[in-house]
């Protein structure tokens, strides 16, 4: 394993639903600044793994440590985990439909999260500039005052990524960002994620192998199968691994 201090370390994670082991003795280490892609067939436990990291579900067994062991994520709840700098984009776009695009970003801005601040805190000019900048990055400047609910599917996906940016998260967990997007949009999403790599640590869960090739670029790819890490390595190596071909690529699907 890497000698560098790790950002996230999962060891022996197990989570079962009614006897079905969605995550089974999973070991996963992530370094600061990595852009890691996680692939695996349906039901491999990818989304459950994100649920475990973000505190949405709790494991039956195992440990989950953050920032070189400084924090035990299993002892924290959702918003505390978020406040450590772990942001998540959900599989189906989850934005506040009844709020405007700007309001969505305002709600995600890094900063104090208390009641007092929400009542009396003012939005600083720097924050306003940051929002404008993010709107530019996610190409929604023209839609700033429209309700998020009426955006197109792809735009919602981008808005959600924008919300992660506003949060200034250290770790971005991105669940199937290309789902439901056109090839053009998918490509631009890939570019966006690549431009963020380095500044943020990113974990991308994806089905679309073209997209995976675009963003991994020789970086490490993790293959999950039946809740367990099947193999790790660059995309070419992974794609030629016989076990992977058997369980995943052998019945490759682009289904969202």
């Amino acid at each position: 394993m890497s000698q560098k201090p790790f950002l996230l370390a999962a060891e022996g994670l197990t989570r079962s639903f009614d006897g079905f082991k969605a995550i089974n003795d999973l070991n996963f280490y992530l370094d600061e600044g990595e852009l890691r892609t996680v692939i695996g067939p349906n039901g491999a436990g990818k989304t459950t793994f994100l649920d475990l990291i973000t505190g949405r579900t709790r494991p039956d067994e195992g440990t989950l440590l953050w920032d070189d062991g400084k924090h035990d994520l299993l002892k924290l709840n959702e918003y505390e985990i978020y406040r450590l700098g772990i942001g998540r984009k959900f599989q189906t776009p989850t934005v506040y439909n009844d709020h405007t695009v700007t309001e969505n970003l305002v709600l995600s801005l890094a900063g104090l999260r208390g009641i007092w601040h929400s009542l009396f805190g003012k939005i600083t000019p720097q924050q306003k500039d940051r929002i404008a900048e993010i709107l530019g990055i996610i190409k929604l400047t023209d839609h700033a005052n429209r309700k998020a609910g009426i955006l197109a599917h792809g735009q919602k996906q981008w808005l959600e990524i924008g919300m992660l940016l506003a949060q200034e998260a250290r770790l971005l967990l991105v669940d199937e960002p290309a789902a439901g997007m056109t090839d053009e949009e998918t490509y631009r999403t890939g570019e966006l994620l690549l431009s963020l790599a380095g500044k943020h640590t990113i974990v991308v869960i994806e089905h679309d192998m073209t997209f995976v090739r675009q963003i991994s670029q020789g970086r490490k790819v993790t293959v999950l199968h039946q809740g367990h890490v099947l193999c790790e390595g660059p995309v070419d190596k992974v794609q030629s691994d016989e076990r992977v071909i058997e369980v995943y690529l052998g019945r490759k699907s682009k289904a969202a």
Partner: protein
Amino acid sequence: MATSMHKLSARNSKNRLWLVLLIGCMLASLDTVKAQERTVRETVAAAAAASTPGEQREIILTLKAKPSPEAVKWLEKWKEGGIFLQKGEGDLVTPVLLTGDADRDGGYATLRVSDNSPLLGSDGKAIRINPKEVEFADTDSGLRRAMKEVSDLAALANPDTVKRIRAIQDSAIGQKQEKLPSLLLLKSIEKDPGALHALDEAIAIIQLRSPVVAERIGACTKLGEMSSIPASDTIKTILTEAVAAKDTATIIAAKKALIAIDAHISRINAVGTAFRGLSLGSVLLVVAIGLAITFGLMGIINMAHGELIAVGAYTTYVIQNIFATGLKLSPLGFSISIPGMGLSGSGLAMYFAVAIPASFIIAALVGVLLERSVIQFLYKRPLESLLATWGISLVLQQILKFIFGSNNVQVTSPAWLSGNWTVNDIVFGWNRVFVISFAVLIIVITWLVLNKTSLGLLIRAVMQNRNMAACMGIRTERVNTMTFAFGCGLAGLAGAFLSQIGNVGPQMGQLYIVDSFMTVVVGGVGNIMGTVISALGIGVADQTLQQYLGNPVIGKILVLGAIILFLQWRPAGLFVTRSRSLD
């Protein structure tokens, strides 16, 4: 159990005759054998005619030789002043009964007490007597005491086992030592185990007051072994006396006995509480099971659930009246008359058998109407289903008021519901037994429908995944309607059931609505078994708290508080329906 008791009493009645005779002979040997050949009537007549109270008493006491119900009947008549004394020539007095209707002068026909023949005047004509003009046979306290001795003895010899046991138990009251001989005598010939137990207890209780110390101690020990509750007070008195007299042996015996009795009492209370809790839980279960379907399985917050219960109860009311003399209703000034079948007795009693399916069907039809008109639009808006159904409940209540009036209506429940069954000092009321059986019946019906019918299969499929079921060609709309109607039908059944044990009125449903929701929430939404266990649990908890606090309202409030705390521990109820899809 019931059949074996029946057999026992049948066998005993065969032995009854010689038992009575035996008592008679043996008691007679104690008394003067003066009038063996007299019949009861003749004895009573002789006593009534006797000149002095002492003589009267003596004659009456001879009846102890034949302690028959007939004698009791005559003595009652005497005490009521029903025996009149027609004075003849000299000291001749003839006790007579008056019979028939009064004539113009207020006279009645007469019958001799001694032989039931009419009293004839010197002219050979029947004498008519005006009760205001003649004396009636009076009683004084001594005579009444004698009469009571006779009737007590008659009660002890009563062929009816239940009545005999009660007489035995009564005889112990007051611990009169003079009652011991007849009880001991009865014990020597009694066969019925229940009566024997009662005899032992009564004898021991009387012996508690025996002048012989050893006998008192023996009685204490015996009563302790029998865990006799009626003896408790007397033993306490004896204990106080013994402490004052520093009578160590009696103190020990009395204390031991009291400990045993107290243990028995708390056992009875525990079983009694559990039983009452079980029956309350069954009521909760019956009223909540329909909600467990509509709310638990379908997610519809049906605030009109209580009114569907009322619909079932009123259906029972209507059916009962159809079986009897019919029903006149005047909704909004229209007059509707429903003819009755004029049945009575066991024919009328059959109405409940019709009312059960009828209340299910009527409530289910109302459910279909509601589902099609309102609820089908609210499947994805649970909070709004709560509000809309509350509006419906207001409307239904008002409709019921229009049809049946705002007051409670009378639904008669079968007489046997007020009876009870006592085992080992624990009283099992038939109404509670009925409640529990009904709950079991409903659970079985629900389970069968959900698990053994194709409708049940469809219901479970649609409730688990509406979209998937629709994709597989299931007509989910129809299944929704059927499921909702089934839940409403169960509410109707609950109404038929509640009409037997509570009031029937337009607002009756409101009493149960909060309880029903709590039961389903605690049980875990979507889980029928959870509802069953939570209903029984809440019922037992409620009764236990009542037992300790002695106050039903505070008990109920505490239960509500406990439920809120319980949901801290298990926010999703007892049984969580786990799935990967949250929200």
